[in-house]
């Protein structure tokens, strides 16, 4: 009985949470359609979200590509298939590693900052001050972050992927001694526009998840420093979990539209 109550309660609160997220998303689109776009704030957020995430994304992509290429090489080397490392690294980076790892890093860096900033504004009555001045908090705070993320995230994902592939290429050809020509030929042969499209779509979806989860947590932060801390932690944890879970379903769905190359 207690277990049923616990499960029921958890499901109910999760449904409420999804409902609140849906309301936030609806309000955001209502604001955008109503023309409540502040270009100056969008540009500022692109700087915060996109430009300032460069180092994190470059390092993540670079070392993931390098490590993945090294591991793949040692496995393929036993089968005398050294040049298969190229397409494996490239397709994996485009379809999974690039968008997912970039999404997780951005959820940690940008998502945490968003929920902390909005949470602090909530507990110091700045959100109320905005409302009192006749400005809708969603228009002023969520829309610029949403638009900045939708613009920045695909670029960050592509950057992460390209650096990862480049790092894999350098490690495999310059350190592990695989032929550059065959590596590149195989990589380009097995990597196509479908892989790029999949990476980009995933990047945009993960960006949208990060924005709404983080903004929702921030806008609903409870009182005090503890409330802001909890909102920030929850935003990163929930954002990351959403990315991992939705990625699975996205992979299944997108493979129908963008099947793997021959």
């Amino acid at each position, binding site marked *: 009985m207690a277990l049923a109550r616990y499960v029921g309660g958890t499901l109910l609160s999760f449904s409420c949470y999804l409902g609140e997220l849906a309301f936030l998303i609806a309000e955001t689109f209502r604001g955008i359609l109503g023309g409540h776009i502040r270009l100056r704030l969008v540009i500022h957020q692109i700087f915060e979200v996109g430009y300032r995430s460069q180092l994190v994304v470059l390092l993540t992509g670079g070392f993931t590509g390098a490590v993945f290429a090294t591991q793949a090489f040692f496995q393929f080397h036993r089968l005398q298939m050294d040049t298969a490392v190229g397409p494996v690294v490239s397709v994996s980076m485009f379809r999974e590693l690039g968008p997912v790892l970039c999404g997780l890093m951005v959820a940690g860096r940008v998502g945490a900052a968003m929920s902390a900033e909005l949470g602090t504004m909530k507990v110091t009555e700045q959100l*109320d*001050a905005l*409302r*009192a001045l*006749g400005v*809708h908090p969603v228009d002023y705070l969520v829309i610029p972050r949403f638009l900045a993320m939708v613009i920045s995230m695909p670029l960050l994902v592509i950057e992460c992927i390209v650096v990862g592939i480049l790092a894999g290429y350098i490690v495999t050809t310059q350190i592990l001694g695989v032929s550059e020509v065959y590596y590149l030929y195989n990589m380009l042969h097995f990597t196509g526009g479908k892989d790029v499209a999949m990476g980009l779509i995933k990047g945009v979806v993960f960006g949208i998840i990060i924005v709404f989860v983080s903004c929702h947590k921030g806008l609903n932060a409870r009182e005090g420093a503890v409330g802001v801390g909890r909102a920030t932690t929850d935003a990163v944890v929930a954002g990351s979990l959403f990315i991992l879970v939705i990625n699975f379903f996205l992979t299944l769905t997108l493979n129908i539209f963008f099947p793997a190359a021959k």
Partner: protein
Amino acid sequence: MIPSHNNQEIISVDNLVQTLAGQKILRGFSLKVYEGETLVLLGRSGGGKSVFLRHLIGLMRPLEGSICVDGQNITSLKERELAPVRKSIGMLFQNGALFDSMNVADNVAFPLRESGETNEAFISQKVHDALQMVSLHGHLSKMPASLSGGMRKRAALARALINQPRFMLYDEPTAGLDPIVADSIDLLIRRLQRKLGVTSIVVTHDMKSTFTIADHVALLHEGRCYFYGTCDQLRTSTDPVIRDFVEGRSHEAP
């Protein structure tokens, strides 16, 4: 001081009920405010005065009751529909609630920029005038974190006043200020009323300030309007609850 303005009821609050964390804060609070007057709302700390002010600007919605501002029932308006009403009301929050990512000048200019003003020379002149009014000129580029509590409150007051609202809601405007600045804020409230006909509701514990600015005084006690009258009626009241409040007596053993 009976208001010398046309005695038209501009804000009317009827039977407001609100519960916070399971505790009934407002239990049928009713109040009327006349156009152009300054009404001071007194009451114990935690008694629901600030909660009431938040209802007046639609930041909170009552469980029961209605609030009419200028003939419009604002309790039934949606968030986006409230924006025009809110633009006619200035609110000074207890802690100022300045935007901490902006400096003083940008904070004060915020309502102007949000209302579509793009002429920077005009904005900067208005900001200068507003800050001069609250004796805060010369602090334009300071960030809120580097201001004292009183300065923050005055900057917030300048922000609330810059669009010349018809109504002003002050949440403890003189708390935490030195007596001289507190007096200048009182005089400013009075000046705004006389020159611009601003209707003000002031939540305060400061009795000196009350007697300086109030046309009418209301006492919020146990969730209801316990007293409503003029300063003279407040002074001469023999009701023990009112006397205790006016004279600041706690009845606790020393």
